[in-house]
């Protein structure tokens, strides 16, 4: 396989042959190639199709600003759409496909759009497709959607892993061209902690693309030596293949390191990419500059490229885009390209320069004129040049370099809303005055377009930001050509002249946008989609701006600029997500009995980050209801045990502990006796219930506060707020002990009998009545805590031991309880029993319910101040028709009363206007033998016994129910006091 356009030299390793496929055809390239350079070397110019008109597209650039040569890289689950061939590093076995074509790349059926382009101008779709009304979704839009988009996803799970990482430095240098390298050398020698990052796979930037020398070496060799010195510094971290994607607040930068994108498949366990968060004190932005195209008729054919790109392919990659080349330029840099190509032995058909004072050359012809049109269906064949004397010359060439001047790469200076400033001599925007904190810009990015200027700027920047004393380091001699440029944006009278080659935005579209009143830059962008393509307008915005300025009779800065937003280049969503996906999306919190519960065949359920046993399936049980009913009945008839460790526990100590609880609970705690526990309701300051739970007093200055599982964190935060911000002088100390204790609820008539077998103290009703709490010991001496509280409504205890003993304790309980058939129960049974008992949980404490709604208004003490008490008394929260928590039961006991259903008057209409409330929680009560529910009902407390209609049109429910007390079982509470 011969590479017909491969030249001598360059920075590629011709010794290593790399095989790759593009659109099924096999080619070879070398180590050091990009996919684009390898394809060009093989004589492939056509690489894609444009978005709207499906025009043939080849490479425009040699960098990450590439708008055209986007390919689908790799295959199967690793298929990756819209990858720039110009940055894709060639590896052996690489497979790529062209995109956005219907049929083959050469014969794209959708190219028909180009014929009708005159009807498909900017914004045409806003003016049509409106009739008939129903046709948009049904007909027009599906067609548009199908045609839209560029590459496709495989829709298979991304098989690669991505890491996150965190780095710290004194100085971050973005870009390793002359300015960046010089800044790094200066800073590195000073001993500062430096990170030097470049998106390319080798350092050097433009130095790798140029032929001139620095000192006595070629620029590329100088770069290599600089890198060698930098690698010897322990205080310098060199990061190739690393794109700084954004400058965020306070010196935090996002960086994506492509660890494995240059190999076929990442090594096992190794990340494809690492998303680094870099914390730096100072930043030198040395991101270089991007050359501008020129707009002329049919300037979008494959083979028409940025002049600097043709130069890069020849010098760095040893590739001739074509053997016969011409340059269209408005500045001296175009001539440099011609000279380099000539030196490589290519035929320079002509340098077409718009300037009258263009420099002449011995080696090639320089024409004063303009390119007015081009030919070549799938690639450039001819260009027509109109000379200054009006005559037309046709050049027979396969490559045309456009050299419209350079735009400093100001992208990252805009990330914190900084606005670039217009520079007349460069005819370009340069960094403005408001830069991200700690950032300084150097080199071409700052408008220093010569190599000498870049080297000096880099060194100076490092000195300034690091405040280095001493004199400027000695800089090598280097190219220092002045900028000689005559601003020139588009050829007079051109119409189908491309500005945004990816989105097919032409000069004609900009004119139409102006004609229809879309004249501000943002309107221009949004109406024509100029600069909305995957390169974010890096090569297209300026041209559009310039033309709009001329049409509006304003200067370019008057029309304004569009600022850039992160990321600098498109970033894999997988990299931004990192490891937190699949099962690792959130941490798993396991309870102390988890290992044991697994052995028991428990079915687990997510409760926040906790994994709790939902029920314990026994052999022969085929439906979850069987397990749950069994657990409930066994508990109420004998004894059950449940892991309640997940409830939040806060250790409250200090001389003011009781006063503090008086503030956070709406009911009183000051007089709670030592050894006693009390139910407490916490309100938010707006008077709505925040959380409920119990607080036990272990000593005068020591309470244990429990919260619901879901609210453990917010309640702790709230308590700290009250402590630190509202009552800063209270002697009270808080610390969460949720994790420190394994806690089990033991409930049922036999719970005391079971307990007596394992604990060392007397827990008879006399010695340890309802709502008692104490520090005790179990099994001859293990420290433990015992609370006589009941969520189930049965005689019940909660016993806690240090977490490490949790596994041993549950096994002990099961062993000791065997004679009572002790039954472990899960969250479902827990839920059934609390509904039977009428206890509220998250479904009721939903952030909109007040104490009144919960039937607890009397708990809100008038005698003292507590958080939320004042606003809980607002009229609107205390209306007669307020919602009250009640119970509902079906009239036909075989009916369900599902949660989420709405209550309607038995004989009234069924609509929102007549809504009477809704069911918050529901279950089947194995004790009552029918479904029951808790509900919020307007004026509910006065409607006991009323027949109502329960409807859920969503799920097809419509049953007759009766309003009853929410306490379905043991309303007098005799069991729990037994």
């Amino acid at each position, binding site marked *: 396989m011969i590479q017909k356009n491969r030249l001598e030299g360059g920075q590629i390793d011709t010794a290593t042959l790399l095989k790759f496929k593009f659109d099924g055809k096999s080619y070879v390239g070398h180590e050091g190639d990009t996919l684009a350079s390898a394809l060009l070397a093989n004589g492939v110019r056509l690489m894609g199709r444009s978005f709207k008109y499906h025009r043939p597209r080849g490479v425009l650039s040699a960098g990450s600003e590439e708008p055209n040569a986007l390919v689908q890289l790799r295959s199967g689950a690793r298929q990756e759409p819209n990858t720039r061939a110009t940055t894709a590093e060639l590896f052996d076995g690489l497979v790529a496909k062209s995109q956005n074509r219907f049929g083959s790349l050469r014969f794209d059926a959708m190219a028909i759009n180009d014929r009708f382009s005159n009807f498909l101008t900017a914004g045409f779709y806003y003016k049509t497709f409106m009739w008939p009304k129903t046709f948009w979704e049904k007909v027009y839009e599906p067609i548009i959607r199908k045609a839209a988009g560029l590459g496709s996803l495989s829709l298979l799970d991304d098989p690669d892993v991505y890491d996150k990482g965190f780095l710290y430095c004194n100085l971050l240098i973005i870009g390793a061209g002359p300015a960046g390298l010089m800044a790094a050398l200066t800073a590195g020698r000073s001993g500062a902690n430096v990170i030097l990052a470049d998106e390319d796979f080798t350092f050097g930037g433009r130095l790798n693309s140029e032929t001139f020398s620095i000192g006595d070496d070629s620029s590329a060799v100088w770069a290599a030596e600089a890198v060698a010195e930098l690698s010897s510094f322990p205080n310098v971290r060199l990061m190739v293949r690393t794109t700084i994607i954004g400058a965020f607040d306070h010196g935090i930068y996002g960086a994506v390191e492509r660890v494995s994108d240059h190999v076929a498949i990442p090594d096992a366990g190794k990340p494809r990419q690492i998303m680094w968060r870099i914390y730096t004190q100072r930043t030198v932005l040395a991101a270089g500059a991007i050359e501008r195209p020129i707009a002329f008729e049919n300037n979008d054919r494959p083979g028409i490229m940025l002049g600097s790109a043709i130069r890069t392919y020849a010098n760095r990659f040893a590739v001739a885009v074509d053997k016969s080349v011409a340059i269209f330029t408005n500045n001296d840099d175009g001539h440099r390209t011609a000279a380099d190509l000539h030196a490589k032995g290519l035929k320079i058909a002509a340098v077409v320069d718009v300037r009258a004072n263009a420099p002449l050359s011995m080696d090639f012809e320089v024409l004063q004129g303009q390119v007015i049109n081009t030919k070549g269906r799938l690639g450039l064949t001819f260009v027509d040049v109109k000379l200054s004397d009006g005559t037309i010359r046709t050049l027979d060439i396969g490559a045309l370099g456009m050299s419209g001047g350079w735009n400093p790469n100001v992208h990252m200076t805009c990330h914190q809303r900084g606005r670039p400033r217009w520079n007349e001599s460069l005819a370009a925007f340069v960094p403005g005055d408001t830069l991200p904190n700690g950032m300084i810009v150097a080199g071409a990015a700052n408008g220093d377009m010569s190599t000498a200027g870049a080297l000096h700027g880099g060194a100076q920047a490092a000195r300034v930001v690091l405040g280095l004393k001493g004199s400027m380091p000695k800089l090598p001699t280097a190219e220092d050509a002045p900028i000689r440029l005559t601003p020139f944006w588009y050829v007079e009278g051109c119409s189908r002249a491309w500005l945004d080659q990816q989105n097919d935005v032409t000069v004609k579209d900009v004119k139409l946008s102006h004609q229809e009143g879309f004249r501000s830059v943002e309107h221009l962008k949004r109406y024509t989609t100029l600069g909305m393509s995957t390169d974010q307008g890096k090569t297209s915005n300026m041209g559009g701006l310039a033309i709009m300025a001329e049409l509006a009779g304003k200067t370019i800065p008057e029309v304004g600029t569009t600022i850039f937003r992160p990321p600098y280049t498109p970033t894999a969503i997988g990299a931004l997500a990192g490891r937190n996906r699949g099962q690792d999306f959130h941490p*798993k919190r396991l309870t102390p009995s988890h290992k044991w519960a697994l052995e028991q065949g428990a079915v687990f359920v997510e409760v926040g*980050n906790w994994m709790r046993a939902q029920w314990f399936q026994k052999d022969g049980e085929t439906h979850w209801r069987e397990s749950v009913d069994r657990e409930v009945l066994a508990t109420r008839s004998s004894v059950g045990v449940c892991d309640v460790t997940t409830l939040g526990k806060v250790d409250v100590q200090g001389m003011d502990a009781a006063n503090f609880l008086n503030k956070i609970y709406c009911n009183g705690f000051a007089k709670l006796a030592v050894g006693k526990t009390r139910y407490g309701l916490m309100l938010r300051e707006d008077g709505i219930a925040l959380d409920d739970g119990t607080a036990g007093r272990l000593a005068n200055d020591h309470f244990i506060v429990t919260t619901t599982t879901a609210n453990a964190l917010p309640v702790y935060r709230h308590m700290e707020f009250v402590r630190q911000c509202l009552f800063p002088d209270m002697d009270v100390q808080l610390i969460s002990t949720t994790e420190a204790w*394994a806690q089990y609820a033991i409930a049922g008539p036999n719970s005391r009998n079971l307990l007596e077998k394992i604990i060392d103290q007397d827990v008879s009703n006399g010695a340890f009545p309802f709502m008692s709490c104490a520090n005790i010991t179990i099994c001859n001496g293990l420290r433990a805590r015992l609370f006589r509280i009941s969520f189930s409504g049965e005689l019940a205890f909660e016993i806690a031991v240090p977490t490490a003993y949790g596994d*041993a304790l549950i096994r002990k309980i099961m062993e000791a309880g065997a004679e009572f058939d002790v039954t472990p129960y899960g969250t479902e049974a827990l839920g059934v029993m609390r509904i039977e008992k009428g206890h509220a949980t998250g479904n009721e404490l939903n952030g909109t319910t007040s104490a009144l709604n919960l039937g607890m208004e009397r708990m809100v003490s008038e005698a003292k101040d507590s958080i939320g008490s004042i606003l809980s008394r607002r009229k609107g929260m205390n209306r007669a028709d307020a919602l009250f928590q009640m119970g509902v039961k079906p009239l036909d006991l075989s009916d369900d009363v599902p949660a989420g259903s709405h209550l309607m008057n038995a004989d009234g209409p069924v609509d929102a206007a007549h809504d009477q409330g809704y069911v918050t929680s529901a279950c089947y009560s194995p004790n009552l033998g029918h479904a029951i529910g808790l509900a919020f009902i307007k004026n509910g407390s006065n409607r006991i016994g009323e027949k109502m209609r329960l409807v859920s049109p969503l799920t097809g429910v419509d049953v007759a129910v009766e309003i009853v007390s929410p306490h379905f079982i043991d309303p007098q509470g005799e069991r729990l006091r037994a």
Partner: protein
Amino acid sequence: MHNLQTITALGGKTPRIDVFDHITIIENDSVALASVTARMGREAGCYKVLQKLLGVVPETGRAVLHNTETGFYMGLDQWMLTAPRVSHELIADQLKKLFGDNASVTEQSGAWVCLDIIGRAMPDMCERLCAVPVRQMVAGDVQRTVIHKMGCFVIRCMANDQLRILGPRSTAATLHHALMTAATSTA
């Protein structure tokens, strides 16, 4: 004496050890922990006891590592004291006796999983886990931070290649998994 057996945070009868060429991850099951918070107006008294116990009151962001009783800073006037579990099973009671009303003492032994990371790749691994400037830290530096959404203490130990991570005990398996993947990807 009771006969209840503990299990480790990772669920084993004995602590888990994972050995790689470049790193070793050790589950350390032998520390007893208790938090100590100075009572308001009793700070001086509290410092005195700490001084006696540790030789010095741990400063902000610092740990005292050399004694059998070691301690590190948790927050303003709040410290975590640690000691060998064999000798200090009842660390909270023992400390409460010493501090009396000068401090609030809370048992924390069961609340944390302790994982020691030892090996040359320790800094590289730490960089992939949390926003802590591990290379700038010196022995005895402590930071509380987040590792994959888990609030952890990160302690730079005496040995230059050792890091100690205390994480919520209930998330021990997740935390260990995070360490293992980081170890593999830095191998």
